[in-house]
């Protein structure tokens, strides 16, 4: 019996798929983990990406054609990332974009590189990504080194911290890299790491680490927490509830409403993080983006990955216009020559040999549950 069911499902599917491919469009392959553990990070990015395409299409599209962002769900599974990259390529996409995490980029992007089709990651921040994949690999966000250096500078120079504790999520590459660069810079400046502690993504209870933090002597001046958004609010809440009031510093993993909403405004105090220049910013790009996002989805952007997805499509569209064609090589060259592109998350220029964009990094403070941009940090290059 179920053979029949399957057959009819497959039939229905193929009919639907046929309809979708009616008009002549420029296709972009957006690879994201829309289900599974990474979906809280990746799904908003795809919404941002689709929004940009929609806005561009309302203004007449790109190169006179409509832009089509096809979302490929890779299910938080690297096997799916590898096959869907190939699927996107066989569907004839002119460029790929996707992912907020390095490990998935590394499963998908090499296929694009091999076919000579550019791939722009919207949220993966490992500074060596372009080196690992090759010259068709581009990053929309800054590198982890930049954001870690920015917050390390701020912690040392502005907060005046000399002795800090570092907490690292040891289950992710992103968080490990972030800690590594933070420690590097902080020690260079003359600061001292007095304790390192670890946890794993998905941990909900940090009581054991907090008890140790409380018992550290000498008393630390600040704690650096390298975590993704899912643990950001939890750590702040639990640390503050335990009565500790030392400054908590972090990177863009803390760029989420959860940092204030989970602990509540009374406990969300003295938190500082470096992130994409977007939150709390009043540049017209940002305000416009938030307004359009609200119009399209009926809510505020969930996290910084929304504008990053939006910017990844923006970068590609901008390069397509300048290249004047959808040819992979021309598009790559145009992308590599991007200068001063006005993205929602700041101005993007590819000027460094590493292929990592030169972008400003916002330092944001949280006091009484309110976000405030303290300064914008620029990398030296």
């Amino acid at each position: 019996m179920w053979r029949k069911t399957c057959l009819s499902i497959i039939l229905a599917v193929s009919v639907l798929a046929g309809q979708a491919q009616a008009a002549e469009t420029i296709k972009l392959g957006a690879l994201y983990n829309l289900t599974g553990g990474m979906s809280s990070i990746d799904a908003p990015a795809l919404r941002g990406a689709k929004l940009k395409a929609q806005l561009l299409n309302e203004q007449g599209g790109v190169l006179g054609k409509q832009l089509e962002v096809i979302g490929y769900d890779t299910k938080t599974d690297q096997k799916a990332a590898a096959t869907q990259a190939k699927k996107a390529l066989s569907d004839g996409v002119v460029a790929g974009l996707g992912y907020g995490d390095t490990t998935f980029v590394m499963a998908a992007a090499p296929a694009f590189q091999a076919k000579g089709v550019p791939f722009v990651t919207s949220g993966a921040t490992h500074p060596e990504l372009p080196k690992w994949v090759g010259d068709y690999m581009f990053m929309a966000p800054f590198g982890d080194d930049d954001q870690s250096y920015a917050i390390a500078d701020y912690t040392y120079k502005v907060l005046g911290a000399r002795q800090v504790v570092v907490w690292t999520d040891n289950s992710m590459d992103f968080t490990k890299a972030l800690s590594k660069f933070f420690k590097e810079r902080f020690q260079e400046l003359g600061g001292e790491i007095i304790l390192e502690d670890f946890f794993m993504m998905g941990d909900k209870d940090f009581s054991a680490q907090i008890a140790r933090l409380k018992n550290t002597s000498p008393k630390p001046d600040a704690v650096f927490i390298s975590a993704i958004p899912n643990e950001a609010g939890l750590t702040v809440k639990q640390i503050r509830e335990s009565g500790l009031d030392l400054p908590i510093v972090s990177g863009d993993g803390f760029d989420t409403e959860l940092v204030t909403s989970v602990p509540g405004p009374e406990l969300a105090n003295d938190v500082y993080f470096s992130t994409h220049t977007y939150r709390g910013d009043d540049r017209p790009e940002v305000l416009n983006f938030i307004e359009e996002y609200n119009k399209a989805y009926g809510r505020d952007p969930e996290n910084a990955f929304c504008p990053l997805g939006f910017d990844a499509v923006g970068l590609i569209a901008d390069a397509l216009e300048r290249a004047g064609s959808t040819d992979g090589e021309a598009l790559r060259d145009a992308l590599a020559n991007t200068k001063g592109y006005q993205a929602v998350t700041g101005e993007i220029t590819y000027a460094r040999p590493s292929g990592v964009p030169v972008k400003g990094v916002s330092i944001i403070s949280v006091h009484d549950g309110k976000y405030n941009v303290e300064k914008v940090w620029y990398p030296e290059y």
Partner: protein
Amino acid sequence: MYTLSQRLVFIGLALAGGLLILLMRQFLNDYILSIAGFVGIYVILAVSLNITNGFTGLFSLGHPAFMAIGGYTCAILTFPVQRKGYFLSGLPDWLAGTELSFFPALLIGGLFAALGSLLIGLPVLRLRGHYLAVATLGVIIIVQVLITNMGGITRGPLGLNGLPTLTNLWWVYLWVLITLYLGWKLKFSSFGRSMLAIREDEMAADCLGINLLRTRVQALMVGAFLAGVAGGLWAHLVTAITPKSFSLILAFTIVVMVVVGGSGSITGSLLAAVIFSMLTEAFRPLEESLNVYGIGEIVLSLILILILIYRPIGLFGTSEPGWLSPGKRKSLSGTAGD
């Protein structure tokens, strides 16, 4: 025993498969080919888990752990020497200077997985039923945590990437054939009968002089060896491997294939593996055009539950289609269909 015509059927099927691959490689795009590759890997996994779970009645969820061991071993062995020392600081010099070709690397990967299963199996296989399931589930998590934290050898959570694309359909097909052949031989050998005897009635098997623990461990090791090889094929098809590549969900998927196909039926596992891995892909166009993701999983789980309700022994039960079973005639046994 096998009749001559049955042997010919086997050889004919194998050749037909080869021809199919030749045609596929000629006419189909990379995407379909990579899907076909994973279908083959799932066949290896399902049939090998069937040797452990289906034949012997052990309920092991440990396959992903063995895949991880085999996959990492294989990937480290084939990793280009010039980048190896830089990426993997913890490797001893002789290993950092070694670069093997694919086949021996796969074999060694499989052997390491089998070795791992021996170490795990000797204590754990004294457990029964659910307890064994829980313990092997623990093994998955322990292996995952160890790989994550042994950065010098495994590169931690980042995993090994930029692996050479060594896996192609021919390699997968070769191992599918080896797996099927092995499964078949085992099932219809005295060892296979011992395994089935343990599954059906442990006490009776014990009385007949079958060494329970040894037979169990051997069954686990055979399954683990093939899982290790599958892990190596997997890694070189994705060209990346991380601690999270092989998860509990994967264990679940493989178990589903075995149960739906029928515990103990090689044909059943083979077909279930093919159908399930293709079905997941079949839902994609629907999800992409409707912009709702996750429907595929929901529908598949639903189908699975329905199968479990209406046909709990799976499509084929323990049997194989009559025209393939040794010592049987066509008329004697009907294929269990749906």
